[in-house]
């Protein structure tokens, strides 16, 4: 009998897990005992952290994507179809083409989806920009290229959001980018955050304060954007802030099939150490779709995939799984266009944010290229 492992989603979590499983379970696959399939509605794998660089002309949309067929191990089946339903009792997926797919083990890796439309005035062809998608990042690139005076506001609207460092990086890159273009003194920059400090991760918030002051980046806290009208942001707290360019970090959500399948009310609810679904047998979650109490960062999917592959391989072999995940997370943080730093933390360990330097900036740029090896399960 063949064990069918089906992975829904071809982003970081799904692709890395599939490639590592193919390597780990090679003997079982060769013997016809295991079959691994990725079902993805996108034939391309997207490296979304690069969207941060698109508005500044430092990356193109082509840089952000590679065909899944070029990244995924040849021992993994690829099915390009949209999954419309997960039946965890019958262990079966329904797909948009009307076909069904049975599984013995399911890995859900459907990611987090930006919802700019949840904030009136935010999104494409609206006064408020964002950079969490190809079209939005391209639109913002054009707007920034033509912006040489006025008030730029970056507002974090929803948490949790993907790429937790991006809102920290954007104003600092913008500051230096405007200086290099000779227009910084004609541009005021303001950063806003929903709670009483500048970032949810406390040490990151503390690191930001002197750096934003040095760069003359204004800040506003307890600032929950309610709507973005032409030229004015209104908040839940009754505040108003005028802008000439507004960039919002939108709310994010899980795919609707998660709630419909009973896998979680908001995010997919998993055990934070085993990654097993809290609601269904033989179902695992990985990456941004989960409710893991850490950041929605690619590094979390990367590190968690090691645990998931180990546990799933043990299950397939009839052994007791032993490996557990403890929330390891790493995020690079750009502090402008020439220096950077990084933070590393876990469920029970807060990060220490070191001073930024040129080496870590170049490390981040280097990793943006090396990422494709991570997706292949190589590093």
């Amino acid at each position, binding site marked *: 009998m063949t064990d069918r492992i089906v992975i829904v989603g071809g982003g970081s979590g799904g692709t890395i897990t599939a490639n590592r499983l193919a390597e780990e379970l090679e003997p079982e696959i060769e013997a016809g005992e295991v079959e691994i399939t990725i079902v993805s509605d996108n034939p391309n794998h997207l490296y979304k952290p690069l969207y941060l660089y698109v508005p500044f002309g430092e990356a193109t949309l082509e840089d952000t994507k590679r065909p899944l067929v070029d990244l995924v191990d040849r021992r993994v089946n690829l099915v390009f179809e949209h999954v419309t339903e997960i039946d965890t009792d019958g262990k079966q997926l329904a797909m948009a083409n009307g076909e069904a797919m049975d599984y013995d083990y399911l890995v859900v890796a459907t990611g987090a989806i930006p919802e700019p439309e949840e904030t009136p005035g935010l999104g494409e062809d609206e006064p408020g920009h964002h950079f969490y998608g190809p079209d939005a990042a391209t639109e913002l690139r054009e707007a920034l290229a033509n912006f040489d005076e006025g008030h730029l506001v970056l507002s974090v609207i929803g948490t949790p959001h993907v790429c937790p460092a991006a809102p920290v990086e954007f104003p600092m890159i913008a500051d230096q980018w405007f200086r290099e273009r000779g227009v910084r003194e004609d541009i005021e920059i303001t950063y806003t955050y*929903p709670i*009483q400090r500048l970032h949810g991760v406390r040490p990151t918030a503390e690191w930001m304060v002197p750096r934003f002051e040095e760069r003359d980046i204004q800040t506003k806290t*307890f600032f*929950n954007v309610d709507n973005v009208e032409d030229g004015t942001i209104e908040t839940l*707290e*009754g505040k108003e802030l005028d802008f000439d360019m507004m960039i919002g970090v939108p709310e994010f959500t899980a795919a609707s099939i998660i709630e419909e399948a009973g896998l979680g009310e908001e995010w997919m609810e998993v055990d934070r150490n085993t990654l097993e679904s809290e609601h269904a047998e033989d179902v695992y979650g990985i990456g941004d779709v989960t409710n893991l109490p850490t950041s929605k960062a690619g590094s979390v999917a990367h590190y968690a995939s090691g645990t998931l592959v180990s546990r799933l391989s043990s299950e397939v072999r009839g052994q007791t799984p032993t490996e557990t995940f403890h929330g390891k997370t790493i995020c690079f943080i750009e502090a402008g266009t020439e220096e950077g730093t990084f933070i590393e933390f876990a469920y029970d360990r807060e990060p220490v944010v070191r001073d930024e330097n040129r080496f870590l900036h170049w490390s981040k740029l280097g990793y943006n290229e090396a990422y494709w090896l991570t997706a292949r399960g190589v590093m």
Partner: protein
Amino acid sequence: MSETDIQADVTVDAIGSACPGPLMDLIGKIKDVDDGTVVELLTGDEGSKNDVPEWVEEANHELLDIVDEGEHWAIYVKKT
């Protein structure tokens, strides 16, 4: 442990959610409900005891009570 007579209209269960999760979960709920609604926030994050009252004051809502339930806290907020 303590008790309260406050009857909540809706409950936001943010137990297990790390900071700033509980406060953001509360803000999201307050955004959706009508004025006068009493929201109960269940949180295991001790920082919520300070964060939530600060935001409630900033946003001009009403903090009704903070109840220590042993393993977690129940914070009652009325939208005004």
